């Protein structure tokens, strides 16, 4: 069971208000895509969920477990933060693989350091994940020997190794050459079929439409509109949403 509840998340950087009250719910097995123009706070939201940033206000909970409560005035210590992070996985725009480790080692590093099982179990599971993302032949290669698309698939396997409740993607294909986006999107789609709960920030509208249960359109730090892909793409209510979608169509 993993239902995510986010309530009234606020985040400022100095005087810049980046998130101004974000609330939504994500049920187990659902995929939500977040779209919106650059600077609207999408990355900051994912970083808050992964506790790379601390929200100024708001509540983050999974099922009945409150991970963060900005009003409770309790500062989380390092161990609690690390504990919380394990509920989430994050796939970065720029992959951030560990260059000195092979593909297999990238995937096994964290589970081994966190003693999540015997070394054999961890390695076996890692090999399964590497197979799942279609890189079995590359298991002993180093990141510098891989294409961007392959690196991003390793990053996905690495994030899955700790079996997070919710996997977040921050524009997973934005740093890729166009011909390589397909292989990454395909992996995410397969994860959806396998029942993963995911939050995907993306500019790939066609993909978002096909894979998501919900679409969130963010603008200026708030959720301007939330709905099913059909509602958002075919029948947007907000002027801002219409405008954004029009612009992203023009780009093509």
């Amino acid at each position, binding site marked *: 069971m993993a239902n995510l509840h986010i309530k009234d998340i606020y985040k400022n950087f100095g005087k810049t208000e980046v998130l101004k009250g974000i609330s939504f719910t994500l049920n187990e097995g659902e995929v939500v895509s977040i779209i919106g123009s650059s600077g609207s706070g999408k990355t900051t939201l994912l970083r808050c969920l992964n506790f790379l940033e601390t929200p100024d206000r708001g509540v983050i909970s999974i099922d009945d477990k409150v991970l963060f409560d900005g009003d409770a005035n309790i500062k989380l210590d390092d161990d609690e933060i690390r504990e919380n992070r394990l509920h989430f996985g994050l796939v970065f725009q720029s992959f*951030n693989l560990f260059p000195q480790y092979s593909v297999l080692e990238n995937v096994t590093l964290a589970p081994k350091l966190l003693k999540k099982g015997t070394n054999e179990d961890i390695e076996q599971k890692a090999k399964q994940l590497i197979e799942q993302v279609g890189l079995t032949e590359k298991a002993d290669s180093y990141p510098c020997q891989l294409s961007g698309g392959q690196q991003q698939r390793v990053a996905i396997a690495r994030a899955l190794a700790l079996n997070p409740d919710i996997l977040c993607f921050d524009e997973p294909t934005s740093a890729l050459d166009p011909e390589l986006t397909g292989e990454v999107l395909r992996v995410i789609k397969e994860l959806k079929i396998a029942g993963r709960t995911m939050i995907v920030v993306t500019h790939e509208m066609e993909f978002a439409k096909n894979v998501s249960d919900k679409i969130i359109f963010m603008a200026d730090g708030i959720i301007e509109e939330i709905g099913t892909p059909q509602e958002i793409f075919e029948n947007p209510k907000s002027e801002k949403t219409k405008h954004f979608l029009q612009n992203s169509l023009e780009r093509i």
Partner: protein
Amino acid sequence: MTFLQVTLFLWEGFKLSLLIFAVTLLCGAPLGLPIAFCSMSKFKPLKYITKVFVWIVRGIPLMLQIFIFYYAPGLVLNIPISRNINLFFLKNFGIENMGMIVPVLVAFAINYACYFSEIYRGGIESISQGQYEAGYVLGLTKFQVFKNIVLKQVIKRIVPPMSNEIITLIKDTALANCIMLPEIIMKAGELASREMLVWPLFYTGVFYLVFVGLLTIILGRVEKKLDYFKA
């Protein structure tokens, strides 16, 4: 004097050069690490004190620092400069009554620690934040991230500048002769004035060259070993 005699005579001096080299490296390289961390500290006073310290040490000639450590104990603490401390291990270097090697070693170790600290700092700061964050979102501790993810990338990046410093160090050991410590060039000078032999002075260059050649090979191997990944 025969060539062999001269060689052996100079070798006595070069052993001292090598001693200064080894002690400086063994003390200075580890000492550079806390200095680097202090200079990156979030606690501002510590950071700025460290930066001023590094600025001073790197900003004045090493020779002057040797003089400072040589004379300061006598001037400030009124401890007489002792030429008669018997440091047993120095017997092997033909300088058994040379307590004055201590100020040289201290000056060298501190001086090089400061240079090393700047190299470490540059290396650590050059690692992208994304590497740390990738580790943190996997639930790793700060220490685990530094030790298992960042460190090797830092090492790879600092090997070339460290090689430069290490090669400079062996040549810097000649500065020890400013307080009459009989390193190799001082020994050669002795031959020039006592035996009217000038060529050994130039011959000392061969000792340095051979040693630097060895260092170059060793450090090149280290660099090669880290070639398997790009960082």
